[in-house]
């Protein structure tokens, strides 16, 4: 209920109070008298009330409503409508002007509201009426419809009684004098009173009016019934048949003789406003009565001239790749061989999740037994994700036979002769053969082994001609390149021994003996003396040159007078050259960067090639300044090097199994890199006259290549792999093939294996 109505209620209350001021009657009859005094409108209510009293029940609420509606239906209906409108008005949030209207309307509607209230109250009315006598104070407090009540006799008003709890008085009378409270009985008195008076239990103290009330028998009965939850009146029948007391048929006059209020004749302003609003909404098309004509949702989208291709302004559209079509294994009834066995399925469990097969074939013997596929939605979803989240790129897939990638090589038959099969084996060494060397005439080969022996073999027969035994493992052997000067250089540990093989004619022997005689040793310069010392070899009658470090490689100059040795040392001390004729040792006139691995003399000019770990540098021996060329191999670790007899081409083998061919006229980068061996290359070699070269590796194979160098500078060298030579045992503790050398005249290849065998391959 709004505040205004409350106010008005109070007004009325006051009215009734003044009216009934002197009236001190308690009973219901008196109340009804009071009502009769009220205007006609109220009479209706009293009527209603009576009615209610007659047939009010648990559902008296509904009854009241319907009654009301039937009594003054037109009025009430309009009210209902109004109030509805009111509500909707508030919802639609109108302007300020309307809110003032609202107030007016509120007043208008007040009476009606009041009526309603009264109706509601009247339901309680009977209850009130009953209780009035006993608990009037409370009733006064509770009920807000005043006119039904007996006027309160105290003048305190609706004031909480605790305000006067500690006072002697309870409020004031009209003249402003205190109304004093009755003396309160103490406990003892009250107890005595109960003892004395058997009807004392019926007495109730009314605090408000400060008096004792005695309940009548009927009243106590009523209370009892109410406590039991029954209707208060014993003669009340809650299920009595409904009797319509009003005769509807022949009523000509209205129930009320009150003149019709004006508002019933003037059109509602609210309604007018509402209508305006609706009209506006309809005009603007916000409200449509007929459903809008539905355009056909589908139509001929691609016109018949859809063949004309408009150039799209946008980026090229990359159509999504289609899903892979299912194979036999996805069938509901695949062949049995497609179904993995139990063990295989178990092994899938052990796999990483990425490696695990996405789909495991299953077999169902009939169509009806196929269950729903549990991943259907998920797969569809993943496809969707792929479609809008995956970057699309056009990729050219090469769909060619991989064999077509291989280069077309000239027929090997045309490149004959080349060594292709093992012809002879030279056995005699007890340890891996580390190094071999062919004599320039091609009649002999020398070999050195880790067992410390150096042997000379006759090539064609395989006979071991001579053997020298040393204490240390032989690292390197090298024949003097001059055919009339058959001496052998052998490197082992820190020593370089120059041996007389005693092979040549007597005349040659003489010259050799003379040469190897260390009679008058020339003075070495001090820096050289720190590195090298020339000593006579007591055992085999040669020269022993002791170095300050282990020798890793030796190489003869083509003239047979000079010999270079390589030690693992930097700067100028890594490579030294020995001149046999003068028994002199020279350091190189330039510094070397890094540790040298091997050196090679240029076959025709005064150049020396020095390979360090990664690069090969070419120095001019006659000049003291830096390298004239630096060849970048791009390899991790160089192991060996060989020069073409023409002098312009160089091959370099590395420990990663790669071999580079340098054409020094072309570039300082390799002309070709061949990845032929899976393991370290131990040595590479050129043939002196045939266009052949070879490499050998610890994987116990040797490759023979055709490597033709043309005189025409415009033509690049032709490199053709010819043969893979196998035969050395692969088991021999990771040794493989340690050295390979070509025969100087024939297209034959010697290989020295870690299985202590030397092999000769012939064409």
């Amino acid at each position, binding site marked *: 209920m709004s505040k205004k109505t409350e106010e008005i209620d109070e007004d009325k209350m006051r009215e009734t109070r003044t009216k009934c001021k002197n009236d001190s009657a308690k009973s219901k009859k008196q109340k009804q008298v009071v009502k009769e005094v009220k205007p006609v409108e109220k009479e209706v209510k009293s009527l209603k009330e009576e009615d209610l009293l007659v047939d009010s029940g648990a559902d008296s609420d509904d009854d009241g409503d319907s009654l009301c509606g039937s009594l003054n239906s037109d009025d009430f209906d309009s009210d209902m409508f109004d109030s509805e409108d009111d509500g909707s008005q508030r919802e639609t949030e109108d302007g300020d002007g309307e809110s003032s209207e609202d107030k007016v309307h509120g007043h208008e509607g007040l009476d009606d509201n009041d009526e309603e209230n009264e109706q509601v109250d009247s339901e309680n009315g009977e209850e009130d009426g009953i209780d009035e006598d006993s608990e009037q104070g409370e009733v006064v407090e509770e009920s807000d419809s005043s006119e039904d009540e007996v006027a309160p006799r105290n003048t305190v008003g609706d004031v909480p009684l605790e305000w006067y709890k500690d006072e002697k008085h309870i409020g004031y009378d009209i003249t402003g004098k205190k109304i004093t409270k009755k003396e309160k009985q103490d406990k003892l008195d009250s107890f005595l009173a109960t003892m004395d008076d058997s009807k004392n239990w019926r007495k109730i103290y009314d605090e408000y009016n400060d008096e004792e009330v005695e309940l009548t028998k009927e009243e106590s009965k009523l209370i009892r019934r109410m406590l039991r939850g029954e209707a208060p009146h014993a003669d009340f029948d809650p299920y009595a048949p409904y009797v319509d007391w009003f005769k509807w048929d022949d009523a000509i006059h209205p129930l009320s003789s009150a003149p019709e209020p004006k508002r019933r004749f003037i059109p509602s302003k609210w309604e007018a406003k509402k209508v305006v609003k609706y009209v506006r909404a309809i005009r603007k098309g916000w409200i449509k009565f007929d459903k809008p004509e539905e355009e056909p949702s589908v139509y001929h*989208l*691609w016109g018949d001239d859809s063949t004309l291709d408009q150039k799209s302004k946008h980026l090229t559209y990359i159509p999504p790749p289609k899903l892979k*079509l299912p194979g036999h294994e996805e069938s509901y*009834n695949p062949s049995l061989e*497609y179904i993995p066995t139990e063990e295989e399925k178990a092994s899938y469990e052990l796999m990483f999740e990425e490696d695990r097969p996405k789909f495991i074939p299953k077999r169902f013997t009939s169509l009806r037994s196929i269950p729903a596929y549990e991943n259907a939605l998920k797969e569809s979803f993943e496809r969707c994700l792929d479609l809008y989240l995956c970057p699309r790129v056009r990729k050219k897939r090469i769909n060619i036979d991989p064999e077509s990638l291989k280069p077309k090589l000239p027929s090997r038959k045309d490149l004959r002769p080349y060594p292709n099969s093992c012809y002879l084996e030279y056995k005699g060494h007890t340890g891996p053969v580390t190094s071999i060397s062919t004599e320039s005439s091609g009649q002999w080969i020398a070999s050195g082994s880790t067992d410390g022996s150096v042997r000379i073999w006759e090539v064609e027969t395989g006979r071991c001609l001579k053997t020298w035994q040393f204490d240390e493992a032989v690292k390197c052997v090298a024949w003097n390149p001059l055919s009339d000067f058959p001496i052998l250089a052998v490197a082992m540990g820190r020593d370089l021994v120059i041996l007389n093989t005693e092979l040549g004619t007597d005349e040659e022997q003489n010259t050799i003996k003379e040469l190897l005689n260390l009679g008058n040793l020339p003075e070495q310069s001090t820096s050289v003396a720190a590195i090298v010392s020339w000593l006579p070899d007591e055992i085999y009658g040669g020269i022993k040159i002791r170095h300050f470090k282990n020798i890793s490689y030796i190489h003869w100059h083509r003239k047979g007078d000079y010999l270079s040795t390589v030690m693992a040392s930097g700067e100028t001390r890594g490579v030294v050259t020995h001149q046999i004729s003068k028994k002199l040792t020279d350091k190189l006139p330039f510094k070397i960067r890094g540790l040298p691995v091997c050196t090679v003399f240029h076959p025709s000019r005064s150049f020396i090639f020095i390979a360090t770990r990664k690069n090969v540098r070419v120095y001019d021996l006659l000049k003291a300044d830096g390298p004239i060329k630096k060849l970048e191999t791009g390899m991790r670790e160089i192991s060996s090097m060989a020069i073409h007899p023409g002098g312009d081409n160089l091959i370099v083998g590395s420990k990663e199994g790669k071999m580079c061919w340098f054409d020094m006229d072309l570039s300082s980068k390799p002309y070709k890199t061949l990845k032929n061996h899976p393991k370290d290359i131990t040595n590479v070699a050129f043939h002196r006259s045939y266009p052949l070269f070879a490499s050998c590796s610890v994987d116990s194979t040797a490759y023979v290549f055709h490597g033709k160098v043309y005189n025409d500078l415009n033509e690049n060298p032709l490199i053709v792999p010819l043969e893979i030579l196998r035969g050395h045992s692969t088991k021999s503790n990771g040794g493989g093939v340690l050295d390979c050398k070509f025969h100087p005249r024939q297209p034959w290849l010697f290989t020295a294996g870690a299985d202590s065998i030397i092999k000769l391959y012939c064409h």
Partner: protein
Amino acid sequence: MAPKHYRPAGKKKEGNAARYMTRSQALKHLQVNLNLFRRLCIVKGIFPREPKKKVKGNHHTYYHVKDIAFLHHEPLLEKFREIKTYQKKVLKAKAKKNEELARLLLTRQPTYKLDRLILERYPTFIDALRDLDDCLTMVHLFAVLPASDREKLEVKRVHNCRKLSHEWQAYILRTHALRKVFVSVKGIYYQAEVEGQKITWLTPHAIQQVFTNDVDFSVLLTFLEFYETLLAFINFKLYRSLNVKYPPILDSRLEALAADLYALSRYIDASARGMVVEPKVDASSSSQSNDREESELRLAQLQHQLPSSEPGALMHLVADNNKEVEEDEETRVCKSLFKDLKFFLSREVPRESLLFVLPAFGGMVSWEGEGAPFKEDDDSITHHIIDKPSAGHLYLSREYVQPQWIYDCVNARIILPTEKYMVGRVPPPHLSPFVDNEAEGYVPDYAEQIKRLQAAARNKVLPLPGVGKEDLEDPQNLLYAGVMSRAEEAEAAENKKKMAAKEKQYHEELKLELKKGKGIVVDGEAEAEGEEEESAPNADNNQIAEDNAAMAKVTMPRKKRKLYDAMKMGQEKRNEGINRIKERKNKLKNAAQE
């Protein structure tokens, strides 16, 4: 020191930095949230690109600037924003308990259409057909999904999907464009050829599908929205090409019986027949013809309603289609595969699939239930499809086969012998028609048998001398060739083959004799030489081959060598799978022998 990517002030960005932007940059640029961006991307068909150089790092998604600009100018973006604000309005009204206003607002919601986008994405009809695979698969999947409140999947949409998929199937059925069918564990794959495009789609098995939690339905529904529109337009175009009105008006009785496809095909049949008569009138007065058309339609409708005792409206399709001239060879083969055969489906058979497949290959089909064109006791039924372990009442006039027989026949394009597919037996393996067995490197046994049968059938149909002789040499295939009605022919062919074989043998003998007579010395020598040459290196042929391979590889440049290695590895992997299958097969064989 200048930063790594220093650019002088005022100089514009260029290269990959200017051409691509990351997703979050794109969001900022478009001023949309991720959800809206995703929807736009899906609807517009925009996907990330792979820049050559990823300027922002590897873990970003990159979009081309042009793509984003394309989105920026999209009117739909504005529309989406409008919808968003409108939603706010409705929410506000609801929050203020202004139900009436909310209701009013909801009736006037802004809507959008995707037709323009479809035309934009697929400028020609062929383009649209090319990308139809995903669309069909998705629509078919959603046609069997249960509607769900939680996932915001409305009943309306499911019904629409169902309708669209049936319309599509009706078209395929009508034009006999279906080529391959494959029943997999995932569902049934169909492949059809429409306007030269091979379209493959997957329909799930007709069993209640389950929702999984690891799926974001909003993505799926956005895709579905686009696909539904696309398929509707495609169906329209296809129906138009058949001179049938779209959307079709269906016989409600059949629809209620869940025989939509049948109803559709009857509709198409009826309206196509109507159209054939009509076209002249069409040209003269359009309004009249329209009326007439409609009345014709209604007539057709009424015809539908007539009791369907006339054996299968689908019959007419077959009859009508004979008139059409523009048909390729394959269509003709497909159309006449089940010609003159009458099928009856029993209850437990997957009806939807077979009702689609059988008529598409020219067969007449009926089923158990109401609205079926003919009843089970029809005498002219030749095949009864059953998927039970045993049949109840047996009619002697027909064959009882399992449904797989039909699929296998369709894929093989011949009528296979039915013994293996009898009721109660475990049918032979169902093979995928999408696999090229030769290219794969492994041919399953049953594929070989089918191949032989095909060759035999071809021979019978076109008895050309010399064709397929190799196939016929094998007397074993005669066992399979004994198809009931053609038994006699088979016999004749057998005789012929025997004759041919004998003749051949005779020829060979003659040749041998001649050889001996003429140049026994010369030939012998030559042969001996050849043998010698061959035998010598035979010793370790493998080694030589290996060496040769290795040597060829040695001279390859690194790039090519790597490529070669990769290719070899791929081949090996493929071979590995095949070898595993072969191994399993051997094991099985051994086990069977023991």
